[in-house]
Structures are given as C-alpha cells and as structure tokens.
C-alpha cells in the first residue's frame, strides 16, 4: 500500500499546494473545492487533499461550504473500513457531532444534520451491518441528496462490501449476500458473477480462494541477523580461549 499522503490521480498543481505553505492560504480553497467536485465526478479519491481543505475550513469557518463538506464525507464512506472518515470528522466544527446540551436534534438542512446522518451510515458500515446500512440509506430521502454529487455511490459501496466479503468468506448463503449487497434476482446474478467473478451454486455463492480467506495456520520463525553475533565474534577473535 502506498503512503497515506499519496494519490495516484493527483494533479501537479494540487501536489504543489499540498507540499507548500499555500495549503494554509484561504485563496486555495476554490482550487481544492474544484478538486473535490472532480473527485466526485471521476470516481477518484484523494483523502490527503480533502483533509487539507477541511483544515482550511477549520481555520476560516466563514469560507466553509456545507455541500463540499458532505461530499468529502460521502467520498470517505466509499473507502470504509479505513480511518479516513474519522480523520475527516476530526477536522469538522465541534458542534456538528456532539449533540447539543439541550438535546434538541440539529435543525433540518444544517451541516450538523448532514454530518450526523452520514456518521450513522459510517457506524453501520464499520460494524458490518450492511443490510442495516441499505435500510437506513433508503429509509430517508435526505441520503439521496447527500450523496447526489458522488457519481456511482451505490455501485461503489456494493463493490466495497463485496471486497470485504471476499476477504472473509469462502462460501456465503445467497439470501445473506443479497441483503448485504441490496440486489436480488437477475441483477444479483449479474453482479456476483460478472463484476465479482464468483460462482453461484444453488443457494450458495462460492468465493474463489485468495490470500485473505484461506485461514491457513502459519508459524512465525525468528529472523536471525548476522549483526546479532557481531559482539560474540569480535570477542572470540580478540581473546581466544
């Protein structure tokens, strides 16, 4: 895996801003915002740059754009179970996450409402409640608005869930997987066999073996380096017994 601060599709001008002090310059906000829009459109992702934008918002709250913030969070959902979503939350205004003292839910249309909604999705994803995730997602019209800018959000989420499944399972019941992926019937057959390349065998879906889902016992052996013996050899050489 590449370093956290690396993104393969990052344009040069963004790279230059990130590596210089312009990353603190409020004038670069527009450039970063455009870049977020691009990521939503092209299905690319650059967490390190998005964090830089959130930091600019953190320092200059008057520049913050709620739409961009929700787009960044929605993009971070698409790479669960990585820590990206949490890292984004850390840079958001404090009032967005912690419920207000008087317990009143956040106002409709506010940033706090959007953040808390997306946060709920994130909780369900990271606790592997994929069926719940889809229920929540489809149970409230607000979600469709929140991820509207992110091209292919649902499709990407299905693929991500499939990846997790392929890491943990060799066989899975069809009805379970249908719930997790939120597709059924012919569409399910197509997704599982064409996109994932798995086999459907009656009521079970077989996932080809890979490094992750094998569960093979291993024995970790000691790695002995020559250097460790340096002192011993030196001593033996200097004062032969």
């Amino acid at each position, binding site marked *: 895996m590449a370093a956290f601060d690396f993104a393969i599709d990052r344009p040069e001008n963004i790279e230059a801003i990130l590596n210089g002090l312009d990353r603190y310059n409020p004038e670069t906000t527009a450039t970063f915002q455009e870049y977020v829009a691009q990521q939503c459109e092209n299905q690319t992702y650059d967490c390190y740059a998005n964090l830089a934008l959130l930091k600019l918002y953190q320092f200059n709250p008057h520049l913050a754009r709620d739409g961009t913030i929700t787009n960044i969070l929605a993009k971070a959902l698409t790479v669960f179970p990585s820590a990206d979503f949490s890292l984004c939350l850390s840079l958001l205004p404090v009032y967005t996450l912690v419920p207000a003292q008087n317990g009143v839910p956040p106002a409709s249309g506010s940033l706090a409402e959007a953040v808390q909604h997306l946060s709920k999705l994130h909780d369900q994803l990271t606790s592997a409640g994929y069926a719940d995730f889809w229920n929540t997602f489809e149970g409230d019209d607000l979600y469709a608005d929140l991820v509207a800018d992110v091209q292919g959000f649902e499709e990407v989420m299905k693929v991500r869930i499939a990846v997790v499944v392929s890491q943990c399972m060799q066989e899975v019941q069809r009805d379970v997987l249908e719930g997790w992926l939120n597709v059924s019937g012919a569409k399910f057959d197509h997704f599982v066999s064409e996109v994932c390349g798995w086999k459907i065998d009656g009521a079970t879906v077989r996932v080809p073996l890979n490094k992750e889902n094998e569960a093979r*016992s291993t024995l970790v052996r*000691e790695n002995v380096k020559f250097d460790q013996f340096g002192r011993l050899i030196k001593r033996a050489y200097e004062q032969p017994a």
Partner: protein
Amino acid sequence: MHNCTRATTSFCRVTRGIRPSTPNMSVRQAPAYQQAQPERPLDDDSDVEEEALANDYRQQVGYTDGEGEDYGLERTDSLSSGPQDLQAQLQAAAQPLEYQATIETKIQSYDQYCNLFHFILNSEGPVDIEVPSPFWAWDVVDEFIYQFQSFCSYRQKVALQQATTQVNEEDVAVLRENPNTWGCYSVLNVLYSLIQRSQISEQLAARKRNEDPAPYMGEYGGRPLYQMLGYFSIIGLLRVHCLLGDFALALKTLDDIELNKKAMFARVTAANFSTYYHVGFSYMMMHRYADALRAFNHILIYISRTKNFQKGQQYDSIAKKSDQMYALVAICVAFHPTRLDDTIHTALREKYGEQLARMQRGGPEALPVFEELFRAACPKFISPTPPDFDNPQLNVDPIEHHLSIFMKEVKNNMFASTVRSYLKLYTTMDITKLAGFLEVDAETLRSWLLVNKQRSRQVRHTEGPLLEGEIVSANDLDYAMQGDLIHVAEQKVGRKFTEYFLRNCTRMY
C-alpha cells in the same frame, strides 16, 4: 481596542507572511501593550531618525488599515531593548507563565513572543545572540505552544461557562476584542518561518541522503540558534497539528526527521517524550495500533531505563506523562492484543491492570473505561477559532468532539475480544452454535466476525516516512467462513533461540 479593526488586515498579512518566498514575520498585533518598553533603537544615535521611528510607532498604534509592507521599520520595537534586556527576554521566553496568570499577562506574553521571534527572523541578517542554555530552543518552542494551547483552552472554558454560570464579563470582553491573539495562523506562521529561515528541512533531507548539509544551510541555517529553533519547530508542529486534530499532517511533518536514538530531539528528554507521544497518539487515531504501540514502547522503555539519571522536577513531569502514556498503551493493547516488552507489561499491569482486563473483556461495560482512559491521556485538544460568545450552545469542548469520534471506533470494536476468546478454542465452529454460546443471533455474530477480521488487517509501518506502511494481518488468529462454518487458524510463534544462545555464550567467558 484597536485589535478588532486590525483583524481583517492582519489576517491576509499573516497568510502572506507564511508563503515560502516571503518569510516575513507579521504576527505582531497589539503594540499598545508594549508601551512600557523604551523606543530607542539598539544601534542608532541619530535624533532625527529616532523621531521618525517614534512617529512610525505612533502610526502603527493608531493603525487601521493599509499595506503594512514596511516591516523593516517595525523591527525597531523589538530591537528597542539593550543586550541585557535581550538576555532577560530570552530567559523569560523559556520560562513557564505562573499558573494563575491573568488574561492580560497571557496576552502580554503573546506580544513578547511575537517581538522576540520577529527580532530573530526579520532583523537584517542573522542575529548574533548567545542562548542561555543548550536546551533553550526546545524550551522556548515548548512553552510557546503550551501557552497557545492553554490560552485557547481558557477561551473555550470561558465560553462554555458563559452558557451556564456567571462569568467574568471583563474577561469575555477582552477575549471578544482580541480574536487574533494566540491565533492559530500566527502560531503556525512562527513555526513555519523558523523552519524556513533555518532551512532545516533541506539540511535534514541532505543528511538523510548521506550528504553534507553545509551547502543547504544558507545564511542562517549554519548558526546553532536558528538550527535548533528550526529543528524544534518541526517537533512543535507535530504537537500543534495533533492539538488541532490533524493527525495525518502531524505525522507528515516528521518526514525529514528520522525516528531513532541518534536524532537530535532524543538528546532532550522532554522533546524525546513529546515526539513519541504525539507520533503514537496520531497513529492511534489513524487506527494504526501496532505502530502506535511501537512508538509508546520505545519511549517508555527509554524512560524506564534512564529514570535513575533524571533530575527532580523534570522527572516528575515525565513520570506523570508516562502514566498517561501507559493508559494509551492499555487502549491500544485492548484494540490490538500484542506481546509487550516485559518491563512495559509489568508496569502496565501495575498501573492499569484492572482497566485493561475490563477493556479486554469487551462489551458495553468496557465503554466507560475506554472513555476514562482516553480523557486522562489525550492531548488537550483545542479549537483553532475563537468560540462563539453569542451562541453558547454551539460551543462544545474539542475534547468531547474527539472523544466521540474515538468512542465510535470503540463501539464498533467492542465485541472483538469476546469473539476471539471463543474462536481460540476451536479449529472449526458452526456459526449458529457459537451464536448460542454468545447469546446473540447468527446475523449479529456474522457481522462481528467480519468486523474483527477487517480490524486484524492493519497498516503497519516498515520503512520510510511515517505515513507509509503495508497492510498486514496483525492478529495471531485468522479465520474464514464457509457458509455457516468458521475455519479457524492460529498463527504460532516459533521458539526464539538466538537471545538464549548469545546470553549463554557471554556467560561462558
């Protein structure tokens, strides 16, 4: 007060200041507090010029807007003290403020720092001053950031109390009127300017390539004063980013510094400790528990080995901070069971044995323990912007914010250890049967298994910059599901002979 009117201009001046091409210091903001200082320039005896400077000074005090580009003249304020005063200033900069310092003292202290750094950075050419002690640079940077943090915390506290109880209205008024005092842009500006002036990053990069750093030093970088200030500003930045909740950037800051015993920061115990604490904490917040543990382990072993050589007061503060770090170690071990070094393990059991056992047992009962330890051990998070004094309900303690993010992760993970303890006993197991043992339904258990499996895949650092790493299976227990059947495989660690062999060989002689 004049500061309100200056807020907008100083803002763009600051950002202009931190661009690489113009490392001008422009963090001074409240000249009114410096009236006690004589206005006589250090090496100037012309009356005419003095009058001009005084005029300029007056202009600045009444300054409302304008270019403010003429920094060359501004420097007269900071140069105004004689060499003896300068020594006193240098001393003072490294000294902690008294605990009960008033808000005026805190603001005054900010201005003094600004003057001092302005003098060091923007004099014509490098300044030639003798620093009071070899660790002066670290002490200054450390105290500077500490005061920044405590000022922000104080401001936050006043705003929070405002919602519930009667607070000192005068303090609120002063805070309202000085939104840019101890502002995050100023503080970052100082640190980045010191780094750039000293060209320390270039020097360190050269050293890393095994080159001679001398050609990269420039006019300033060869002088110990600038070199040390620049170097410790990097360590300071690590802390500031951590306080502001930007953990990825915190780790990125250390790109040029190699974490090992030979590094310069390792020579100052407090700096050494601070570096590893913040690196470890940042890793923890990035869910890289193995890396976090490695950082904590390293420094705790160092502290335990050297504790006999540490001096009184400094040792007390290190000991207190070590306890905090042990709390973090307990959290990381609960997330990511590992074999610890024997000394660390013993100390951990001694200090947090009961808490660790409760966290490892998992379940909802463990949540308060995680919360308690996190609160006790986290950095004193701050919010970079002044709180909203008009809408008290929007003000939330930043620590609560980070705690709630952390607790989400804990909640998702809280059944991992329960599942693991059962799986260890079997090589194959039926999901419905195990669900029966655990008194949950099969659906929930399947989710727990997926979560646990994902958690055992962790990014771990091998070499290069701190943000790099490989995904490895960080668990001694691996499993896969075949329909309703769980196949469990254990990773066994072979016996280690080398240590034993070497130890006995030396004993033979």
